């Protein structure tokens, strides 16, 4: 018996090893690609954020060659003290504060509605709400550029006919116009996250609640809502990280509104710095902007998680 156990143990040890190898083999393509397209670029960005491309030799045109010069923390100091950068950060934070709660609440409401027994033909609704997400962000923005155009848009014309002239591109409204595009695109996506969470709730709970005399609304508020807290945390976090990196909408809407500056959001500022339409330019300052922004996004996400935990505890 002992001998049998012993061999069994040995076999198990051997097979675990085999299993590990298989696991790693499956892991390799991912690991290789992940390090190539993710870890390596991040490492490179951190490295280049300590350098600046400048011309040497002075004169009117320089020596005809840019020199890769170590500048220490200069690029970070530039990013952290740039008015443009902080204006951009302020803009995306404001955007997040307005857009994310609105979108998450709408998504939750839609998910609850679809999950309730009132709605028939769930597939159609689910697909319909999700469809905008299938349209690439750039294309969606292009569509909305037309829909916001004062002279072409049926929406603008319709509102004007009702006596409400709206300029979707004017100063403060343009941010809301962008928020509308994001909401339109991602509400369906977040709804799916909530729907999945809702459908994972064991139906015994509903039955128990019903036996206790709860009606449909009470079940929704007191059984379903608390059960999707985890999903809400995930959806909120993804949305915060996404909106902080706001890029597609303002980049495309620039066509229609030259007032959307090259540094409208920090991500646009990073791209345009790297391309040379903001000075100082080059990969160094651009990387520094991106890194500072990543740190800010991380901090905001952490603050949100901590606040959420506090609220849940109390």
């Amino acid at each position, binding site marked *: 018996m002992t001998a049998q156990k012993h061999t069994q143990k040995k076999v198990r040890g051997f*097979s675990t090893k*085999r*299993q590990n*190898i*298989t696991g790693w*083999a*499956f892991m*390799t*393509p991912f690991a290789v690609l992940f390090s190539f397209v993710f870890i390596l670029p991040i490492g490179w960005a951190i490295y280049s954020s300590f350098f600046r*491309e*400048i*011309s*040497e030799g*002075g*004169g*009117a*045109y*320089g020596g*005809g*060659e*840019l020199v890769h010069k170590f500048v220490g923390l200069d690029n970070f100091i530039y990013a952290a003290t740039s008015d443009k950068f902080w204006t951009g950060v302020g803009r995306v934070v404001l955007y997040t504060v307005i857009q994310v709660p609105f979108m998450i609440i709408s998504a939750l409401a839609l998910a609850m509605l679809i999950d309730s027994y009132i709605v028939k033909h769930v597939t159609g609704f689910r697909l319909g709400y999700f469809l905008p997400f299938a349209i690439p962000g750039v294309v969606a923005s292009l569509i909305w*550029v*037309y829909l916001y*155009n*004062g*002279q*072409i848009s049926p929406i603008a014309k319709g509102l004007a006919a009702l006596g409400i002239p709206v300029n979707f591109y*004017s*100063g403060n409204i343009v941010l809301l116009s962008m928020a509308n595009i994001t909401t339109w695109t991602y509400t369906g996506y977040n709804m799916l996250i909530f729907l999945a969470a809702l459908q994972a709730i064991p139906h015994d709970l509903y039955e128990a609640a019903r036996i206790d005399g709860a009606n449909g609304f009470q079940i929704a508020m007191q059984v379903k809502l608390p059960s999707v807290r985890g999903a809400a945390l995930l959806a909120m976090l993804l949305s915060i990280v996404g909106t902080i990196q706001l890029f597609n909408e303002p980049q495309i809407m620039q*066509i*229609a*509104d*030259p*007032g*959307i*500056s*090259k540094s409208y959001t920090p991500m646009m500022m990073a791209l*345009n710095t*790297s*391309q*040379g*339409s*903001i*000075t*100082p*330019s080059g990969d160094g300052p651009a990387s520094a902007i991106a890194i500072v922004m990543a740190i800010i996004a991380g901090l905001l996400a952490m603050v949100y998680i901590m606040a959420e935990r506090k609220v849940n505890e109390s």
Partner: protein
Amino acid sequence: MNTRGKHLVAGVASLAVMALALAGCGSTSASSSSGSKDEKVEITYLHRLPDKEGMTKVDEIVKKWNAANPNIQVKATKYAGEASNMMKKLEADVKAGTAPDLAQLGYAEVPEAFTKGVLEDVTAEADQYKKDFSAGAYSLMQLNGKTFGLPQDGGPLVYYYNEAAFKELGIDVPKTQDELLASAQKAAAAGKYIMSFQADEAGNMLTGLAGASSPWYTVKSDKWNVNTNTDGSKAVADVFQKMIDAKSAFVNPRWEPSFDAALKDGKLIGTVGAAWEAPLIMDSAGGGESTWKVAQLGDWFGNKGKTGPDGGSGVVALKGTKHKAEAMKFLDWFNTQVEDLTTQGLIVSATTATAKTPDAWSKFYGGQDVMKELVAANNNMGDFNFIPGYSAVGAAMKETAAKAADGSGKVADIFSVAQTTSVDTLKNLKLSVAE
């Protein structure tokens, strides 16, 4: 264990498939070098010409050259991205040693490309072809007395207007500033506009209009003298401010769909535009037969009949090219294919042949010899050159122009922003600026 073995096999197999797929991806990109039998030379050329339907495509033009020159084979590629991203690509390509031999660059980008170390000095190889191009354009391909390529086309600013609509209002193309303001007022009273303020083009058009009178950037004892608040700039600011205040200019970004809509529905009946906009305005206004015309700019900004540059490009040799002489030989031939290049909508800088107006153009522009008018403008440009890093200046001007357009700023601010941004840009590149 048997099943585990299968798993492992499956794992290895899927890895192998992945590797194959990756290898497949790789092999397509590494096939540009052809066998070097004979003394065959291959030249690569990156362009961003329109290549639209009805034009003689760049590939077709190059095919003619390749047939006649078996030893200098050219491979032309169209740059698919946005023009503003191309510099970045060239910079990276030069560093990686994979840059093409020739690439198209806007005149405003040439100084920047030099400072960034992208250009190859071809003074010796290009000099013999100098006679084939207009002197002004050739000088835009030169810095510090060295030549870096050959000019292709020019973009002088001209005035586009609808003659019949003007007659209906009883106005003519204004000759002076006062006439311009008065006529604009008259047209606006009838719900029409004879001038447009395009915030998105501010960094090109307003610079060109101001540049018609005097340059902004001059080099004295190897130092930049920057003055973007010239008399020309002040006049441009003054005229546009008056027109915006009086609502007698059509205030709309150039590349927003409603600009084309205004051309089409006859609300916008006159505008300043670059020469290369001739076919674009034609398309926007609906094409076919019409009474649109092209005229020279009036003396509206103290420009004394001169005009300024808005766009236009040359083709430069890129650092690391091994076949300078062959590349310039091809380039001289290509840039003097006047008839073919004209179909691309270019106002060529070559002086070897007279450009003919395409049929569709003369139909739209009421039988006018449009090309002759545009070439006249091309030969009537004030001296203007750009600084390295000008794209940052243009971008800052555009933002400020948007404020002037919605009334939260003044047109004059555009030029003061140009001043500070120009100086900052030069300083950040560690170039010398006189203060």
